[in-house]
Each structure stands twice: as C-alpha cells, then as structure tokens.
C-alpha cells in the first residue's frame, strides 16, 4: 500500500497488466530463443543420431564433428568469416560517414539546393532501374564485380537512412548552435565534426547498427556480383549451401546423381554449426550500440 504514494504511481501499470505483459513478452522471447537453442543443440549432435532420431535440444550423442568439419574445410570458411567481419566494419564506417554528411547538408536550411538533393534521394526510393540495368552499372560501367568493392559500394547510401538522419539533424541540432559555432570561428567541417556529430550520436548509432546488420547478413550482392569463390562471405556460403540442398531435393528433372551430389554437401549438423558461427560477432554488436539505440529509434519515430 505504501508504494502507492510513490511519486511514480502515474507511470506504473496495474499488477494485472504488468503480469500479462510479462507473460506475453516472456513467451515472445522464448519463441525467439528456443529455435536458436535448438540450432546450437543440433550442431553439437552426432550426425547419425540426427538422421535416425531427429532434432533434440540436448544432444543424445554429443559430438564435435560438425565444428571439426568447419575448421577442416578450413580456409574457405575461415576466410569467409574474416571477409564478413572486414566488409562489415569498413562498409559500416564508410556508409555511415557518407549518409551522415549527405543528410547533414540537406538538413541545413541555408543550403540553397537542399530540396533538389532531397528530391534526388527521395526519387530513388520510388523508382529504380530494375535488375538488369542495376547489374550492368556495376559490371559494365563501374567494373566492380568480383572485387570486394561489390560488397560495399551498392549499399553505401540508403535513401531511407538519409531521410531519417536528415530529420534527426533538423530536430536535434538547433540552428542557433551551428550559428554560435560559426561566430566562434569554426569552419563548416569543424562545426560538423565537433558540434553536430556529438549531438547526433543516437541517430548515428541507430543507422550504424542497421548498416552493420545489413552488411553482415548480405548474401544478395555476392549472389549477383561475385564469381571468385575466394571472395565469398560467410552468409553467402550459408545461403548457397541451403539453396543447393533445397534445389537438389526438388529438381526431379535432374535424373542423374542427385544423391551422390547431396552426399558431398555439408551434413545437417555442419550447417547448424555454420549458423551458430554466423551469429557470433553480430551478437557482440548489439550491446555496443544498445545505449544509443533505443533513444535513436524513438527520436526518429516520434519526430520523424
């Protein structure tokens, strides 16, 4: 009864709703976590056991075979892992810088052509050239196919994130601060780096997290643009393996040697082990961004 007089009374929910929300979100969290635990469980199970008795959370026969296979198949997966990390870091830094600079410029009211440039960005959200012209730009014009640039250049600028950042700058960086910096003698770059960026940290962190996830999870760009197997990233190797297995299981027209080919692909447990490894680094990215993340999202949503 005492705590009813607490000053937070207005903001607390009734015990009933509180309990209900707890149950709902516990169930929801379980729905997210349980499949993950199953994947981890299967990845540590003996392959034969998986075939004969199906998936189990706790391995009936414990085995490290799957992870041994991943290490043994060696340089391909390890290299892909390294590449994924590198592409994610370089790509995120580059793309966030470019998005931030672009968005900042079109957020300034004293920039004469800001509507034109906003329109150019906006236009790409509604219209695009289609797959074949898109492909030709990268292969015939920029010639970045089959290089690491193919992972980065196509996702450098995302029109939607530019819009979010523009709104963020407009609402969180008052004109008067920029003006006072100018009066104190700061040039445009100095204003941007020392005054505007620190103020925009939550927004930048949000974009950075999205882009990190985007670069890490990307399998589409290598699907279209990368031929050299040495340049495949981890997600693409996973994607390729899974689609190949599905394809072979259903390609009834292909009369010959399906079983023989399937036998050469990674086993069920090895695929699970690859999944577990693919989750690895990206889970570490969350706590890093988290302290800005919530704020950034709400600010973007309410005022955007």
């Amino acid at each position, binding site marked *: 009864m005492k705590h009813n007089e607490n000053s937070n009374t207005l903001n607390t929910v009734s015990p009933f709703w509180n309990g209900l929300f707890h149950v709902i979100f516990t169930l929801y969290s379980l729905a997210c976590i349980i499949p993950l635990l199953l994947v981890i469980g299967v990845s540590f199970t003996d392959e034969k056991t998986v075939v004969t008795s199906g998936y189990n959370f706790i391995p009936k026969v414990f085995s490290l075979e799957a992870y041994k296979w991943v290490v043994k198949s060696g340089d391909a997966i390890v290299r892909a892992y390294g590449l994924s990390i590198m592409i994610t870091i370089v790509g995120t830094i580059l793309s966030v810088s470019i998005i931030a600079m672009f968005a900042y410029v079109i957020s300034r009211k004293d920039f004469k052509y800001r509507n034109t440039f906003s329109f150019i960005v906006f236009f790409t959200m509604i219209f695009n050239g289609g797959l074949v012209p898109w492909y030709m730009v990268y292969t015939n014009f920029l010639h970045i196919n089959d290089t690491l640039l193919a992972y980065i250049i196509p996702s450098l600028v995302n029109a939607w994130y530019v819009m979010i950042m523009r709104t963020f700058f407009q609402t969180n960086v008052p004109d008067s601060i920029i003006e006072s910096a100018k009066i104190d003698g700061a040039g445009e770059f100095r204003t941007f780096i020392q005054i505007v960026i620190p103020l925009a940290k939550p927004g930048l962190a949000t974009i950075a997290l999205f882009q990190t996830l985007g670069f890490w999870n990307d399998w589409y760009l290598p699907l279209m643009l990368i031929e050299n197997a040495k340049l495949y990233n981890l997600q693409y190797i996973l994607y390729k393996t899974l689609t190949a297995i599905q394809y072979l299981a259903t390609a009834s027209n292909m009369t*010959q040697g399906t079983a023989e080919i399937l*036998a050469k692909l990674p086993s069920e447990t090895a695929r699970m082990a690859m999944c577990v490894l693919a989750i690895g680094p990206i889970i570490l990215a969350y706590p890093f961004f988290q302290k800005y993340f919530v704020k950034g999202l709400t600010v973007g949503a309410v005022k955007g």
Partner: protein
Amino acid sequence: MQKAKRLIGLILVLCLAVTFVVGCGNDDGASNSTSPSTSTASGSSVAADSSVVLDPVELKWYVIGNGQPKDMDAVLAKVNDYLKPKINATLKLSIFTWGDDFEQKMGAKVASGEEFDITFTSNWALNYLQNAPKGAFVDLTPMLDQYAPQTKALLGDKVIKGASIDGKLFAIPTNKEMAHNWGFLINKDLADKNGIDISTIKKFEDIEPALKIIKEKEPGVEPFQTVVGESAYRILDFEKMVDDNVPGAIYGDGRDTKVINDFDSPEAKTLFTTLHNWFKAGYIRKDADTITDWQANRKAGKVFSAVASLKPGKDGEESVSSGINWVQVDITKPMATTREMTGAMQAISKSSKNPERSLMFLELFNTDPELCNLINYGIEGTHYTKVADTKIEVTQAGKDGYNPGTPWMFGNQFNTYIYDSEKFDSATAKWDQFKAYNESATASPILGFTFNSEPVKTKVAALTGIKKQFMPGLETGKSDPATVLPKFIDKLKAAGLDDVLAEMQKQVDTFSANK
C-alpha cells in the same frame, strides 16, 4: 505560381523517367535483333582466317556443380598447356553451385549481354527451351560440319534432332545415357534378410507380397516410399507435354501421338486404387502427402522400396552415395524423349566474341579422353590414382581440392574413367552397357517437340494449382480415388482442361506433320 512550377518540374521528371525506361527497352530489342547478324558475319571471317593462324583467345566457361574447387587454377594451368598448341586458347572455367548461385548469376549475364563464351544449359537449369528461342545462344547448326564434325557423328541424328528447337541446334548435348526407364530401387539387405525373391518382380503390382512381409517383420521401415513429387505415379511413364504438374500427355511407350488427360486414364485409376489399398494396409507412411525430404529416410535405411528413374548401374551409384545396398528392378522399357536430349548441354553465348573457337574447344573436349578426364577428375597422381587402366581412386588431395563429380554434365561421358567402387570391371564395360541401353531405347514419336504453353498460359497455371491440391493425396494413396478422382477431374475440366488438351494436340499434330 510556385505550385505550378513544381507540377511542371514533376511532369518533366516523369517524362524523363518514362523515356529512359522506353529507351532502355528499345535498346535491348535492337541489340538482340542485330547481334545474330554480326556474330554470323564475324563467324565466317574468322573461320576463313582460322585455317591459317589462330589468335590467342581466352574462353570463359560457366557450368553448374558443387562450386569452384580449390585446385581449379592448377588444373586449368594443365588444361591450358594442353589447349595452347591445339587451338591456341586458354580456358577459364567457373563452377557455380546448384540452385540460385548458377541460376541468378547466369540469368543476369544472359539478360545483360555480358561477354562470355560457353555455358551449361538444360531443361532444369538456365532453361534451354526458354533461353534458346529468346536468342541467348548461338545457332550451331551451320557451324557443326566445319568445327565439330566428330561431335556431330558421335551424337548422331536422333540426339541432335531431339535437342533442336525448330530444326536449329543451340547447344551440344552431353554424350551420356540418352533414355530413361522407370522401376524400383529395393533395399537389398532388407530383402535378403527377409527371404524376398526380387527376381519375381516383373510389373508394378508384383511387389505387393514383399511389402506385406516387410510391414510385418520390419517395424519402423517404410515398405514403399511414395511422396509428393518423388511419387509412384511416374511408373506409368507418361510423356508429359509441360511437366509433372500439368495434365496432358501421350502414352510413354510411343504407341501414338494422341494427347490425353493422363490423370483420367484407366492406368492412373488402377494405380491410385492400388496405392490407396497399400496405404490402408500400412505399406505407405501416413504423412506421406506432406513429406518432401525423401532422402533422409533412404539414407537411414528406413525405406524398403521406391519408384525411381533408372539406367544401367543406377543401383550401384545409389549404393555408393547413400551407403545402403540397393538393387534395381526395371519395370518400363527405355524411352528416348526430348527430356533426356536436353538434360545436360553446353551452349555458346550470343555475347561470345569467339563462337568458332568455343565450338572447336567443345569438339576437342568431346573427342579427346585426356582433356575430358583432366577436367572431370583433375591431375593424375595428385587428385586421383589409377587402379586399373580405366578405373580410378580419388585421393585425399582430390577430395579436398578437385572433385567436380559431374561427368554426366559436360563432354563425352563415354570417354571418362569410372570409380573403383563401381560395380563394373572397367569403364568400357560400363559404357558398353550405356551404349546398348541407348540403342535399345525407343525414340518417342514426338522427339524434339516442346510444347509452347504461351497461348494457354493462365489455364495451365490454374490446372497446376488444382493438381497440387488433389495429387498429393492420390499419389501417396491417402485419398480414395473412387470419390476424389472424379472431383479432381471435374475441377480440371472446369478450369479449362479441354482447351489446353486441344492446344497440345494441335501443336503435336503440327509438329508431326512437319517432321
């Protein structure tokens, strides 16, 4: 005023966008229609030169498989040493992975007109029957006599006719088994253990007593596996006009060219009834109509028998790959249809600058055993060792570094070595059986025919939907054909089955008349 200005601006931008799109479209069309003439023009000029001296060229070749092997560069270096003095070309071979990896990459290359020379094509990957008429590949018919006479002789008229579209050959089929037949794959260990005499099985129904024994003595084993897609229905061997999903076929034994609704045939009704009885007797698993992964149980030794597409030595291949001792029982007669002819082929791209040299390479690849085995199995002593004259064993270095494992996909399979684990004494023994099999095959009366479903496209889509609704129950024996089959047929008829069948018959008749 301000508003009017903006409106005008917007309209201008839209106009620009539209002209851009239209412009692109026109451009595409133009390049498509002009490219044949330029390529044939350059073709004849290079041909004249080639008899004198060949310029060095690089040939880009894309195929489907298990992805690029680690030691590809080492093998290609050997290949190039070999090719240089012969046709002054170097080869750049890329193996993409089954499914999207190959489909999407090649789709983009073909659509954008990117330069490359040779690609794998077939009726199941980078669809030959769709891409060739669109002008993606070079018409090889006029070039065969000059650049690939031996390949032409090797394949023979039957195969070339079967792989041609409107009399034009757009790709070189792999020389392999060129027929199919259907029958059973039976788990030999289970059969022996329970004293089942396989030799008594001559037709489909003959397997029933064996299923009864397995049902009683081997709990946990599926006596008869028939699942969606991988189903027993295929034993009827109808030659389908479109694919397994669309009604409309001629009898697969080549008796005539009358197009019928195969689902409504007396044979289908008998089969569905048999399956339903087996289902009720527990020979077929209860959830068969929802199963798509048919491999898992086979590998685990939990399947006794299933209907499969066969060829000589199929049981041996399956045994090696699944680790289960299979034996095959042939039920239907070998038939040669368009499907086998277009099952694996190499096409030369319209975007290739050196179509003649590409064809010269394919000729060499089809006729030269050394080159063929080098590309199929890698370097002798490194990737494999010979255990007999034509039998090889893959080394560990081979397993890790170079093991495409798809000799049926390109070239001339009759020139390749065989694995030591196969049940044949020598490669010659195996390939002689294949040749005999090919020769024994009856050619389909409509060999080379492909149905153009464009005029009845929407009806075909509707029929496919209905088939997917009813067929899983029927082909797995779950539905009672006495009640379900008439409903199925009625629905098909209501969706325009008769129009589709009439269109099929019309095209078949036109094809037969022009033959």
